[in-house]
């Protein structure tokens, strides 16, 4: 049985209550978005006490479901002003599930001081004063936390650095990986600022000695997990490409396709893409003695994580992800992996979203404040994020804040959130996702790169507007479902191509919960998630006019293909046609 834990930061009271019946089918993003919709006033100040911060492992949290340990963190976003689910790996989701927790809701705000929520394996929970940790960044904080734990403990944490404490809109929440390193980030949407606004510095959770969670039918669950793991291992992407090169394997192919945003989205190819590539990163890492293959959480069979080490072979940061290498690299005109590693380390330590920061830095560079390619200038500016300087505060509030402050017209955002590592002009399907997802410009919400570029789940010409809305809609629904289950979205590469992988998800969900989950049930779950999100944003003031790309992307041609975004507005506005009917079925409006 799973509980909801309510942590009132105003009164410092902690209550556990059974998961309400109406949420019993919800895990992960389904639960966070349902709670945001039901409990947060749409006009709430994102950094005020009326906002809530929700941590929810997915349905498969605490189980052996392959890649089933993702964590959803939800709130009203200070960056977008809309609903946010920021998804993160690391160990915390499994830990919370083993503690019997379906979700933690942080409410109110502390009157003074900093606190940490400490959850022990015996089921006890307390808020501890953490004033001594004020101003600490994630790596130093991890050492301080470790010193408070007994020898041999097994624990996971979530924490904020100085960017979160400064309430900046790009602040992330860092989660520890299986080795206890705080290098996995719920990056998008500034939820680190929401966490700190409540006076919360860290969540520390121990599951020492606890086993996995109970299944309705353990034998059937084990059969289904083997089927799912086999499908993931047999697919060339999840079984070979990602384990070998990590997400960075995308650099060369997106650059080849002319969709690799370069120097603040001024071009679609970068002359130093090869130096930044996954192939090069693998070779350098192996040469230096670094790790090139592990999972970000236990139970991962894809193993796309790695550690980046410096020239002496010492740990620098997690193996930089494709999106981070793009944002801090090509998008800033920087073509050296060691330079990117320094920037990534600093982002992770002070706790900011690498995508938002790279986009913000590129806008800053376009303003002429520093040159494109100026790594030292970028590091100097980045170090100020969270320290209260004008430049640091502006950068920390994201790409749009920088553009407005420094007078840059080209700001690659939707709903105030920066785009990721795919220009939407030559890859129009991802442009539909950027434009329409309730999350702001978030590539993961409907990863149309699959059919547009990678030939996964069919093919849709990336340069044509035809078929892109249908592609994005299907992917957004499926992704919302995977996020609810707590599955890594990379399983989608196998699910889209191998029917048995999707069957296995149905079978795992059925065997685990005891409720029959058909394919249609799973897709309806995805629709429900999006319905909560779309309706919340509507109440928060968003309209179809917010479902658009920045104006220059309709008029400025992007080389080398020299194309603009051409999906008609009227077609974009059909993507959520299912919401009214789904909402009626849910009895909400």
């Amino acid at each position: 049985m799973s509980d909801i834990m309510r942590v009132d930061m105003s009164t410092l009271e902690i209550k556990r209550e059974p998961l309400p019946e109406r949420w019993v089918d919800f895990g992960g993003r389904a639960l966070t978005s349902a709670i945001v919709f039901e409990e947060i006033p749409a006009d709430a100040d994102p950094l005020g006490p009326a906002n809530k911060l929700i941590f929810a492992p997915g349905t498969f949290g605490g189980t052996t479901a392959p890649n089933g340990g993702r964590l959803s963190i939800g709130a009203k976003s200070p960056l977008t002003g809309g609903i946010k689910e920021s998804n993160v790996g690391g160990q915390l989701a499994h830990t919370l599930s083993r503690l019997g927790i379906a979700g933690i809701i942080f409410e109110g705000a502390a009157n003074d001081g900093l606190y940490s929520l400490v959850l022990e394996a015996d089921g006890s929970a307390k808020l501890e004063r953490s004033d001594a940790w004020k101003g600490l960044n994630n790596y130093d904080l991890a050492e301080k936390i470790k010193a408070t734990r007994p020898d041999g403990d097994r624990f996971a944490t979530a924490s904020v650095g100085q960017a979160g404490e400064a309430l900046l809109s790009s602040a992330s929440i860092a989660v520890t990986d299986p080795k206890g390193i705080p290098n996995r980030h719920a990056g998008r949407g500034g939820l680190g600022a929401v966490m700190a606004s409540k006076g919360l510095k860290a969540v520390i959770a121990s599951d020492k000695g606890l086993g996995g969670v109970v299944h309705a039918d353990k034998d059937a669950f084990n059969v289904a997990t083997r089927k799912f793991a086999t499908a993931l291992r047999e697919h060339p992407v999840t079984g070979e490409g990602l384990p070998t090169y990590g997400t960075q394997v995308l650099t060369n192919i997106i650059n080849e396709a002319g969709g690799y945003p370069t120097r603040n989205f001024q071009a679609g190819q970068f002359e130093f893409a090869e130096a930044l590539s996954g192939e090069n990163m693998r070779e350098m890492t192996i040469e230096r003695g670094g790790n090139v293959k592990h999972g970000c959480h236990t139970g991962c069979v894809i193993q796309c994580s790695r550690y980046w080490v410096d020239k002496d072979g010492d740990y620098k940061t997690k193996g930089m992800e494709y999106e981070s290498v793009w944002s801090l690299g090509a998008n800033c005109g920087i073509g050296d992996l060691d330079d990117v590693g320094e920037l990534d380390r600093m982002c992770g330590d002070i706790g900011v979203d690498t995508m938002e920061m790279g986009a913000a830095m590129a806008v800053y560079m376009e303003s002429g404040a520093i040159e494109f390619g100026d790594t030292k200038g970028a590091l100097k500016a980045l170090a100020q994020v969270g320290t209260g300087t004008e430049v640091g505060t502006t950068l920390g509030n994201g790409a749009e804040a920088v553009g407005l402050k420094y007078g840059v017209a080209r700001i690659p955002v939707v709903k105030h959130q920066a785009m990721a590592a795919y220009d939407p002009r030559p890859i129009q399907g991802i442009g539909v996702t950027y434009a329409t997802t309730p999350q702001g410009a978030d590539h993961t919400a409907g990863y149309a790169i699959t059919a547009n570029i990678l030939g996964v789940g069919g093919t849709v010409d990336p340069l044509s507007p035809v078929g892109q809305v249908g592609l994005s809609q299907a992917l957004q629904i499926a992704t919302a479902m995977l996020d609810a289950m707590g599955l890594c979205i990379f399983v989608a590469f196998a699910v889209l191509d191998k029917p048995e992988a999707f069957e296995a998800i149905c079978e795992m969900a059925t065997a685990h919960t005891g409720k029959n989950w058909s394919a249609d049930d799973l897709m309806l779950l995805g629709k429900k998630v999006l319905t909560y999100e779309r309706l919340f944003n509507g109440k928060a003031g968003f309209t179809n006019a917010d479902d658009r790309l920045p104006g220059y992307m309709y008029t400025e041609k992007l080389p080398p293909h020299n194309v603009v975004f051409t999906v008609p507005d009227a077609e974009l506005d059909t993507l959520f046609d299912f919401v009214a009917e789904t909402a009626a079925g849910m009895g909400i409006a």
Partner: protein
Amino acid sequence: MTIELALFAKFSARHPVPGAGRSARPYSVPECTTVGQLIGDLGLADELRITFVNGRHADDELVLAQGDRVAVFPPVAGG
């Protein structure tokens, strides 16, 4: 005629120009060579792959022209 040929990820070791690695290198092919014929000559006919010609996805039937850039990838994804 001469094209530019680039092979990525695990295919890079199959580049016919010694030492090419993942770099694009000039490569001579007969006039009217199709993508499929080139792929066959490279020994990649049985491999799952994604092929670009001049930055656009290309079918095996596409006839190559002088100066075309051909890039071949194994199945990759991420993000």
